[in-house]
């Protein structure tokens, strides 16, 4: 396959950044998107240039490290992470635009790599159950109805990639935050801290400068873990309850 790539290049956080154009004739429909980028990078290095920096690790869609905006859509729009996107979805001769996640709380570190530490700080603010090591009761002493456990799992599968933020016109981290809130608040173990957790995580989200949620639904459309908007409804319900209880 012949491809033209328009890639965002930015030396560091201070640099203004710009698009640069690269071409390759060595792409193959069976390659992953990142293997295609590898080939372009090898070529750049051989020619004495600076290869394109992009984040990746597991290359199987689970670690959430990867993620770029491809032709305007985070992860490229095929229901997968960038690393699980295969070149068979592109046409020979196509021009592909590649950009980093764009959101105020995600400063660009270099080229396509952004700093997503704000997401970690939302979890630090309360996205956990306080269970000290060694103090746990027998696992089967806590019965969890299968529907609850299945529903919790549907939210727990979030990989924390940040595509939801990049897709949202408001730059909101609502789907990310709501997925964790919904996972933990659905389980019996999560009940004692249910309302403080919700309030603290939402407060941190606001503090980081993420935008508000106005129900566009762009987030769930690009989510590689297929987390749906019901997470947000659950969060809003618990946030309201937290306010009524005077926790938030």
């Amino acid at each position: 396959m012949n491809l033209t790539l328009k890639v965002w290049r930015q030396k560091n956080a201070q640099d203004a950044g710009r698009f640069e154009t690269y071409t390759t004739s060595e792409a193959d429909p069976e390659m992953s998107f990142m293997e295609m980028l590898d080939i372009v990078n090898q070529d750049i290095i051989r020619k004495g240039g600076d290869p394109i920096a992009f984040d990746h690790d597991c290359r199987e869609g689970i670690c959430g490290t990867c993620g770029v905006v491809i032709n305007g859509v985070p992860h490229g729009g095929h229901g997968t992470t960038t690393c699980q996107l295969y070149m068979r979805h592109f046409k020979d001769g196509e021009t592909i635009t590649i950009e980093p996640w764009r959101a105020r709380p995600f400063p660009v570190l270099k080229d396509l790599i952004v700093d997503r530490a704000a997401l970690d700080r939302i979890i630090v603010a309360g996205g956990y159950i306080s269970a000290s090591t060694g103090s746990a009761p027998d696992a089967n002493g806590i019965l969890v109805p299968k529907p609850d456990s299945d529903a919790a799992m549907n939210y727990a599968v979030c990989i924390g990639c940040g595509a939801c933020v990049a897709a949202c016109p408001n730059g909101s981290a609502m789907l990310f935050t709501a997925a964790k809130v919904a996972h933990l608040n659905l389980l019996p173990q999560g009940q004692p801290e249910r309302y403080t957790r919700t309030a603290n995580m939402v407060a941190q989200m606001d503090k980081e400068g993420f935008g508000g949620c106005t129900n566009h639904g762009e987030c769930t459309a690009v989510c590689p873990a297929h987390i749906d908007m019901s997470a947000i409804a659950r969060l809003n319900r618990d946030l309201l309850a937290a306010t009524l209880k005077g926790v938030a």
Partner: protein
Amino acid sequence: MATVVEPRIAPVKNDNLWYASDSMPPDMAPSGPIAEMWDKHRFEMKLVNPSNRRKFTILVVGSGLAGGAAAATLGEQGYNVKCFCYQDSPRRAHSIAAQGGINAAKNYRNDGDSIYRLFYDTVKGGDFRARESNVYRLAEVSVNIIDQCVAAGVPFAREYGGLLDTRSFGGAQVARTFYARGQTGQQLLLGVYQGLCRQIDRGMVKMYPRTEMLDVVLVDGVARGIITRDMVTGAVEAHAGDAVVLCTGGYGNVYYLSTYARGSNATAIWRAYKRGALFGNPCFVQIHPTCIPVKGEYQSKLTLMSESVRNDGRVWVPKKVGDNRPPGQIPEDERDYYLERMYPSFGNLAPRDIASRAAKRVCDEGRGVGPGGLGVYLDLADSIKRLGKKVIEERYGNLMEMYEQITGENPYEVPIRIFPAVHYTMGGLWVDYNLMSNIPGLFVGGEANFSDHGANRLGASALMQGLSDGYFVLPSTVPDYIASTKFKPVTTDDPAFKEALNETNVRVKRMLSIQGEKTVDDIYRELGQVMWEFCGMGRNDADLRTGLARIPKLREEFWQNVRVPGEGAELNQQLEKAGRVADFLELGELMFIDALHRTESCGAHFREESQYPDGEAKRDDENFRYVAAWEYNGADKPVLHKENLDFEYVHLAVRSYK
């Protein structure tokens, strides 16, 4: 201890590839009946007064199951913990990718499981090359792990009554594997990560993401710190502490293609080896039978299809050599369900090393399927017929999706194609019962240590070991070490830190200054090919020698002709990779030497010279019933120490799954 900055370029001149030594550090296992050892040991441990704990700094490198759980638990106990990882968040450690499940001797199904049976299965599964005392403790602690994970909110699969569900894994005849769909590692790691976040919130753990450890610092022979590189700014920095805990995962990426995350590396443990830590059984590498076959030259990684799929899938190839018909057109009686045929009592759930070799054998016979004949079928058709598509979807949905993305084939309609791939390293830094290396104050947990899995790990046991080490063992043994040690005050102004910082800076500069013709990947790929071809699933003396002879040449090529673009003081992914590959180029050599010296077959290490007439691996207990613990010896040959293994409880026997 000699410190070496210059890479060692020692050509292989003669047959004497190593020195042998009679000395071996003690294993520190307590005396008495095995079932009482851990309790007794814990009782005998010294304690640190809670108000004093804050004064001690523990450096934990790694935020996977082992490192994350250790950092969180030590922080919870009140120690001052610094935790490091190379990813941008601790939640992304490679443990996240584990799919199938975690073992525990809960016996919730009342199917005859017990701590003793898990202990027995693990020792036997490891082909009698693990230390009994450690394995027993692992089995004992396994039951607490599940309790801990559930309390932390891990959404394990449940039955309709609300109880936990389990499934079977290879090498076991009981269903002791707990799981969360096909994302067990993800859910366990997120549980650990959330606990870690809680300690970060409390100010007990300081997290250093995007920070790579490049050296360990010894002061008077004791581990007192590490050297790191900030992967965003490029700053090389020193951190001092009272104990160093390495939980940096396995080194399977020495093969270039593997199921590991691309960043998984050996640097932390290799640097420790070069500072004097013994390296145990480096050649014990697990090659997993169920991975998606290689597609092309450009391939950057291999993807696992969880072993759990073997619960519901049947492995087969055509009976006829060169039968190219599509699978659907091959009638039942022309298919060879070879695992069921060769191992009737374990069938498709034969252990990994055995299943991998069987796959290699049928492919070598010319009966492999798919491109290049390097594949076998894993067929779900019978299970889909029996249980319905929905049940299979529920069990393996995300794996099926992944398979379809990668291959473009629908696994509900055509059988999955699989082939063995490098997956896990049983070898690693040698540790005693306390998980301390032979360097005082240097602890090693998780896949990074030489582990409880002997020469072959059973499925779903790595997650168990990582959490056992991280939640329960290290948080007991590290404080015991702290309580019983008199620490001399050390800061990063100590000459040992200065020297190590300087060495790291020199090395980085040197890599950047070569500016040769080959990319890091060019050389890395070649190294991977040499490792796979000559130190892979079947090993023999001639091949091993051929491979061994190639490594120094590759290393020389690297240090003379590699091109690392960019600068040191910036985010530089090629520089990161170059450092890791430089270490793999040295580690690879030690793996060859270890594989050459062990002329027996055991577990995953199959020496073609040592087999029974039916092709099964032949162990040599008389000569090799030991852990090979290698000591770095500067530019000279490494020194082999031996930890002899005694089997008091599980009697030595030929491992049979027939």
